[in-house]
């Protein structure tokens, strides 16, 4: 029971950057950016390839993030320079990335065995903190000390990201970014360069997705080019759960909602998996998104005060 909860929290925090990334594209630019299905994998395979080459996992993860950011840049340039529809641009880059990711990894998947990864660090940290890299016991229930370290580490990453993003969106640049997504004509009329803002949002969004991808691969001791498949829908599910919690509050709370939504989502799924009721996680995510977008009118009315219009449309 506790073991499942700790594991769910670890995964939730690992995927929280993805949720923040999807929040940026979906809630600010108002379109579901499929690039994340590719850039999540890019983060995983770039980090993996670098760690296989002997780079330390922290630098490899950061460079994985940059790889994801470049993927976002490609989508953004297709939109702003070539005038391709946002949705189509995302699909094109995602499709291209499938092969590119395979080339970077040199195959379809790669298990980390001898490589030093964040998990190696987690093992060492667990030994240092809890005197064991195997099981801890709480209330008579065992759980993995390494997973607890992951919760602490990824949780700290999430907190840092939340603080940075909250501050960032209060700056002149951040405000212009929100305006450019919310109402491009108004943003232009007050002198914001909308193209620059679209590019920045997509770069940031996909870099965050790639960070999740890189951590995800290291948590599961393997990188695979299929890691990113369905991640946009997962991210949308997190964001919509978060919107149900913190709908029309301040921007900072809505950002927080994306992270809390991710944790809640994983805890609920873990509980359902424990009771043996849920196995098809991506199917579940798709259904959650579908339900969130097509809630019956009376539920919508009930929630209308808390949910932003875009979320229930």
């Amino acid at each position: 029971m506790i073991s499942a909860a700790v594991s769910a929290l670890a995964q939730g925090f690992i995927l929280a950057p993805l949720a923040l990334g999807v929040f940026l594209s979906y809630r600010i630019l108002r379109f579901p950016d499929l690039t994340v299905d590719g850039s999540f994998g890019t983060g995983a395979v770039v980090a993996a390839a670098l760690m296989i080459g002997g780079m330390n996992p922290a630098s490899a993860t950061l460079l994985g993030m940059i790889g994801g950011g470049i993927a976002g840049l490609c989508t953004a340039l297709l939109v702003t320079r070539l005038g391709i529809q946002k949705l189509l641009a995302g699909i094109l880059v995602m499709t291209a990335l499938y092969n590119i990711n395979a080339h970077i990894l040199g195959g379809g998947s790669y298990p980390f065995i001898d490589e030093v990864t964040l998990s190696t660090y987690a093992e060492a940290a667990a030994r240092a903190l809890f005197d064991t890299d195997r099981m801890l016991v709480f209330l008579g229930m065992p759980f993995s000390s390494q997973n607890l370290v992951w919760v602490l580490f990824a949780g700290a990453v999430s907190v840092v990201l939340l603080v940075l993003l909250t501050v960032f969106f209060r700056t002149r640049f951040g405000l212009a970014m929100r305006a450019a997504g919310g109402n491009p004509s108004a943003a232009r009329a007050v002198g914001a360069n909308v193209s620059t803002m679209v590019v920045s949002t997509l770069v940031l969004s996909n870099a965050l997705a790639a960070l999740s991808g890189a951590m995800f691969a290291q948590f599961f001791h393997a990188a695979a080019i299929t890691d990113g498949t369905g991640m946009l829908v997962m991210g949308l599910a997190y964001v919509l759960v978060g919107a149900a919690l913190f709908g029309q509050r301040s921007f900072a709370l809505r950002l927080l909602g994306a992270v809390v939504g991710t944790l809640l989502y994983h805890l609920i799924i873990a509980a359902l998996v424990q009771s043996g009721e849920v196995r098809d996680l991506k199917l579940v995510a798709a259904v959650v998104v579908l339900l969130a977008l097509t809630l019956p009118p009376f539920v919508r009315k009930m929630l209308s005060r808390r949910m932003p219009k875009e979320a229930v449309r």
Partner: protein
Amino acid sequence: MTALTLQSISKSYEDGDGRQVQALQHIDLEIARGSFVILVGSNGSGKTTLLHVIAGSERPDTGRIFLEGEDVGTLAEHRRAASVGRVFQDPFRGTVAEMTIEENLALAACRGRRSDLGFALSARVRKEIHDRLAALGIGLEQRMHQRVATLSGGQRQIVTMLMATWHRPHLLLLDEHTAALDPRSAELVLSLTGRIVAEDGLTVLMVTHSMQQAVHFGERLIMMHRGKITLDISGTEKLRAQPAELESYFEELHRAELLDDSVAALLREQYI
């Protein structure tokens, strides 16, 4: 000194049936600094296209545009926004609905500055926003933290007006900014418009459909028809103009247009 100079501006585009429409035909126009100019014309006369061209959201096919003597023809819309303020007809177009009133105004306060990493809502900016809202006297300063989505159309237009004039633009473009409002809101927006324009001594180009407004506002009146300026009166001539007189001139133009169109249609039927 002229605030705006247009030299031989032409613009054509394809309509839905693939026919070339001349929206603007060699428009020459000078607007003196500090003047309030009214622009009237029927739908499709080219007045909205003219505003787009001045603001930079559309490029003219030919011609040059000067603002305060500076050639701005190649400047992108967001760059030109540093010196051109604009209020649209659609109250939803000028503000960002899901941002708060103060965030929208902070955005306007950034106009002409680089979008850098300084805090947008510094204490100084927030105080200025509060004071300027309070000066309007309609209680918006108490709702600074509310989202613009909670405002009425008229209130939105007032916020947009404040955004457009925050840094005293060289030219303020008003594109039928009261046409979508109920009469009472329209009146309020107009009176605040007059006040802001007078206080800041702004140069204004205002498009309107209302002959009443055309007569009562401004000291110069321009009428457009089929991409050309057909009437340009100012001074005493403008003062003497009556709404009914303008309407009848307007209708004359229209009748001529109908005539043109019916002849053209006949010709098409006969020969094509």
